[in-house]
């Protein structure tokens, strides 16, 4: 009777062998103390590894993860808010400035045509009316 190999015993405890082979191995182990001992040793090692599984403080872990998850969107939203406020101020300033400028120009043009209608123009150019005299 040949003994079972280490590989086969390993696959046996991992349930990775076909049913027919499992039945043969079970029968062999019942009749072979040496293989039974090898199998017991492997089972003991597996069991000992299971016992190394640790219990961690999952509440602390969870709190830390949630804190990190929550803090990221807040930072993002703060930046977004800052950018939005900046754009809004620029727009308001731009619109107001534009409006004031066009009102000023309209008034200036109006005054200019008023003067032209009341005076003779001697000379004019890009810089404006150089000289006028009363009609």
């Amino acid at each position: 009777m040949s003994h079972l190999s280490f590989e086969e015993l390993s696959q046996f405890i991992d349930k990775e062998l076909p049913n027919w082979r499992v039945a043969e191995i079970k029968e062999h182990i019942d009749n072979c103390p040496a293989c039974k001992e090898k199998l017991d040793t492997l089972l003991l090692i597996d069991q000992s590894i299971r016992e190394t599984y640790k219990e961690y403080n999952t509440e602390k872990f969870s709190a830390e993860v949630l804190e990190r998850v929550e803090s990221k969107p807040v930072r993002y939203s703060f930046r977004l808010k800052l950018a939005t406020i900046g754009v809004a101020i620029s727009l308001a300033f731009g619109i107001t400035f534009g409006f004031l400028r066009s009102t000023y120009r309209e008034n200036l043009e109006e005054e200019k045509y008023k003067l032209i209608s009341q005076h003779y123009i001697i000379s004019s150019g890009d810089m404006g009316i150089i000289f006028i005299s009363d009609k």
Partner: protein
Amino acid sequence: MKKYREENDTELIRRIQKGDEKAFEEIIRRYSNRIINLATQIMGSQDEGWDIAQEVFISVWKNIKSFDISKNFYPWVRKITVNACYEELRRRKGHIESSLDDVEEGEPSIDVPDDAYSPEDIFDKIELKEAVEEALNSLPKHYRVTLWLRIIENLSYEEIAETLEINIGTVKSRINMARKMMQDKLKYYLEEKDESS
């Protein structure tokens, strides 16, 4: 929170996809221990395992919308964990040691002397648990992780192959080798146990 504890994963995931943080908290409560344990095995230290596990759950929160609700949640998180750990190890070391498919059939030899974890040292340990922990930590990383996925995560060889992106033959050889190494490292302790029983 009681309401959430009674819900299954699928229901919780649906809630998380809508931004429900309480549901996310419940998912963390359910799986964080397993994820920290797994990450610790891959990274080789509890602190690093803890940190990587946090990154994993943050990544889950960010990417949950892409998760296919018809699939099981835990294998997805486990895969993220394995990838995150190997990615971190690759980033740090930048060489082959940490790659997912760095396997070698039949090496290293179990007779390689390991001064830090010699059988004599292990023999001196009073607690079997401590001796096993040290023996496990002294295994080459890819052997330790494969054995862990088999024994603790209870994955089949095929599932391990999928998770680690290696072939089944490699899984078998890693598990055999890991068990042989464990047996060798614990030999004196195990003999002692036999004699005393």
